């Protein structure tokens, strides 16, 4: 429970730091971008608190570059 409160506090503080200035200067695209990344950040933080073992996102890069890696090691350019 403590970590959820902490996430909420961090999110509130960051919004409080950024939002008033963006609203004053009427930067609406910026507000949308900020909100989208903020939601992503909150989502990742909550997921990390809920799941003990979270799979690393590097598996995607590994999956995409595995064939190229195999090719290079067959040629002998990487180990």
């Amino acid at each position: 429970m403590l970590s959820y409160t902490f996430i909420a506090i961090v999110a509130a503080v960051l919004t409080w730091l950024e939002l008033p200035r963006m609203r004053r200067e009427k930067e609406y695209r910026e507000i949308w971008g900020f909100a989208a990344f903020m939601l992503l950040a909150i989502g990742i933080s909550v997921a990390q608190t809920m799941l003990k073992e979270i799979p690393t996102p590097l598996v995607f890069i590994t999956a995409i570059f595995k064939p190229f890696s195999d090719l290079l090691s067959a040629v002998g350019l990487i180990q």
Partner: protein
Amino acid sequence: MPEVKISLRQVSILTAMYLIGSAILILPSGMASMAKQDAWIASLVGMGFGFIILTVQWQLSRKYPETNLLCLSEKLLGKWVGKIVNLLFLVTLFLGGPAPVLHDIGLFMTVQMLPETPIQAIIYLFGLLVILGVRLGLEVLARSAELLFPWFLLLFLSMSILLLSTIKWENAQPILETGVSPIIQAAISFVSIAFLPNIVLLIVYPGSVNRSEDTHKAVYIGCLIGGLVLFMIIALSILVLGPEVTARNQYPSYILAKNINIGNFLQRIEAVMAVMWFITLFFRISLYTYAITIGFSQIFNIKNYQPLVLPIGWIMAMVSVFIYPNVPYEAHFNKKIWGPYTITVGFLFPLFLLCLHYLRKKRPQKSKKSSNSA
């Protein structure tokens, strides 16, 4: 977005700091495990490769000065294809670039200096510092690089000079025992960690240097300085520790600093030397994050990148805690996947765009438009 202008001297210094970055910590071990006592030759070969790659990257940039890589790929690939390619590039760069480097500094601290501190504490504190730097902008980063570079040089040179008495030349013999193939492998590992990620600089520099026609020269000078520093670190680890000890340790340059011993009086100064890689790693993570943030703001047509820094920095700090589940995974990733990935984005991608540029020039209808804008 505030107008940013940095000088050529600052470009050189930032490039050198970015290049040295995390390589000074993790490079000697991997290279010594591949090329054994010839790792120093491999680093020279790697510098040769590296300058070829730099030429390709900056040749592309000089065709379109003042246009950064992401605008350029939108221009050459078309708007929507370009945007999708840019998005994939930035997301993979985010997962492969700043987050692992931030993890590296946390791992280094928890393994070597503060074993009982949780890794999150170090990652969050260092991440906060990076967010602060990126939020304040490139100009502030460049000036702080200018301020910290003499300190870095002082530490680096004093470490090299203090180690001179412990050098054993037998460690480098026999030369070329392992043959050519391991040297090429080690050179490619050198290039993939030190030179290929310089593609990030093509996002950062165009449009923000006061004499943009000479940017590439400043970058070459910076890369030369950085490459020489890395060469000296690798050569010193081989000569002082020997290839086996270098390959077995996770952070040979830290063990190197532990070996300083002048008359049993000046010793155990490794914690002071560790300041050296805090400085370079800070600039590495900051430039990565800066490039990714301005990249995302360009994709979504956001004029001011600053509001995005805080959430992206938060995501970075969160992701870097679980980016590597364990140390063997990190070694495997660096050895097998990071090389092909950086070859793709750092060499094949700009080469592809360069070919596209020449093709567009040859085609009659579109040639007027593209040559005018060039």
